[in-house]
């Protein structure tokens, strides 16, 4: 057991050493940190010019302190569907393309473990950074305590979204074994999802399934798209069902990706 754990840890260390050296993590952290910082600066600027606007930001329009938490992350809800596939392309797809996966598979490792290690890294690193950024930002920007339920909904949205985007991109990487194809998929996904999210014809649950992070943001900010795009506000029950479906889709896709990888030819 101890030896198995040491073996697994060695695989994680190689994955980190191979794929997450400078500037990957640093760049990712900068992107994730800068977006809410930018939102914070804009908010404080507005407030410092006219102190009365504090009330506007806190209560007047949206009524929830959670709105600010959501607003901090708004840029990231749009960025995440692109960011995660690009990260997968730089980590998993790159090792397919440059042949490192071949080297790795000459060692006594299971293919399932190899792909799981890659998937776990590509989920934990961006989702962990997002979680940290989100929690770190709370005391700096919120004039009053956020609702615990809003924090948990937002974080759940973050993790389920990263899981879904990472596994989808991993599937593309395993099928194409190309960096460019995986990155292009990310860009396409990032462009198509906002269009679908803002389309009134798309049901609420489908919108939650497509981007749980964005749905969580919209829910806690009480930011009804109805106002902007004519779509209805997502009720809590739809949010919960959407999260569940998104999670299930992720797990089914993960199983399929692992199955595909164990049968794929490496370096043929």
């Amino acid at each position, binding site marked *: 057991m101890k*030896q198995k754990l*040491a*073996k697994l*840890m*060695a*695989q994680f*260390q*190689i994955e980190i*050493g*191979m794929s997450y*050296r*400078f500037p990957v993590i640093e760049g990712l952290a900068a992107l994730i940190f800068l977006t809410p910082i930018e939102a914070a600066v804009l908010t404080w600027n507005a407030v410092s010019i006219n102190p009365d606007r504090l009330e506007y930001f806190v209560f007047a329009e949206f009524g929830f302190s959670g709105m600010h938490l959501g607003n901090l992350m708004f840029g990231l809800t749009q960025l995440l569907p692109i960011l995660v596939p690009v990260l997968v392309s730089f980590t998993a797809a790159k*090792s397919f393309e*440059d*042949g*490192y996966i*071949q*080297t790795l*598979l*000459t*060692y*006594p*490792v*299971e293919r399932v473990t190899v792909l799981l290690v890659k998937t776990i890294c590509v989920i934990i690193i961006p989702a962990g950074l997002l979680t940290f950024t989100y929690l770190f930002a709370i005391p700096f920007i919120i004039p009053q305590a956020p609702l615990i339920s809003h924090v948990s909904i937002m974080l759940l949205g973050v993790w389920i979204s990263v899981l879904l985007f990472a596994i989808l991109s991993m599937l593309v990487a395993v099928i194409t074994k190309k960096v460019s194809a995986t990155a292009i998929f990310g860009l396409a996904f990032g462009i198509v999802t906002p269009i679908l999210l803002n389309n009134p014809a798309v049901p609420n649950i489908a919108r939650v399934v497509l981007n749980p992070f964005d749905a969580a943001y919209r829910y806690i900010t009480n930011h009804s798209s109805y106002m902007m795009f004519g779509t209805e506000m997502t009720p809590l029950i739809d949010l919960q069902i959407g999260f569940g479906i998104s999670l299930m889709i992720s797990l089914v896709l993960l199983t399929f990706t692992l199955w595909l990888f164990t049968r794929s*030819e*490496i*370096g*043929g």
Partner: protein
Amino acid sequence: MTSRFVVEVDKISKNFGPVQALDELELKIEPGLFGIIGPNGAGKTTLLRILLGLIQPSSGSARVLDMDISQSKKIRERIGVLLENPTLPKAMGAREYLSQVIKIYGSTNDPDELLELVGLQDATNRQIGHLSAGMRQRLGIALAFAGNPDLIILDEPTSNLDVPGREQMLDLLSHLYHKSKVSIIIASHILSELEQICTHVAFMNRGKNVVQGTTNDIIEKYALNRFRIRCSDAHTLAQLLDGKFGIEDIRLLGPNMFSFRYENSIDSIVLPVRQEAESCNIQIHRIEIIASLEDAFREVIQ
């Protein structure tokens, strides 16, 4: 029942779409230093990838260290591998990476000892991306020895190396073989190198095992008592000489070159052969003895 062969390949075929990389290949490899020789595209790398479980054969079966290739992970626990132009994590240090690979094998080897064994004791903390091609190959050899293997598979271990680098690599392999007595399989298209260090060889061409045996037997069978003539018109001269002066088994090796078998001293027929050539205005550039693995390979493949 344990097999006396480290690798047994039984009628393996592999197709990549319309391309047949392996064609019912049969091969039995005994313990020792074994060379798999063949031109580019002969199917050497495809065979090694099948043995490692990276790709599946279209048909046929194979055993490595008496285990079926379907038990890929168990096989990989007992072998060390150096692929052709291996990709390694450039940002990791040589020792750092080797240490992790040792852990994956569950071995207790000391990474510093392994690095010293391959002459990389001064580059332990250097990033792999900053190592020269020769040093990277040496690190690859150290990685192949990381798990105390019973068999080592090397695919074109001297590719990308300059002449001194190649010689150093061959010396290292020979030294490691004699020190560890671990069986080593080397796939290469550079015959002169394999002739230097391999006890047994197999010639592969177009996905088939053409000839197999000890290096000396193959040279003796296909290159001893054989001579080669380089001239301006090999086809005409070969026809003229066929059956004359005790010359037999003529093989055309190209428009300007042919080989033949002659049991006695070549000196006795140099003059009559030159006279025959002059009578047809054919210029003989050289008459030479064939006695290398490369010549034997050329004889077999032609």
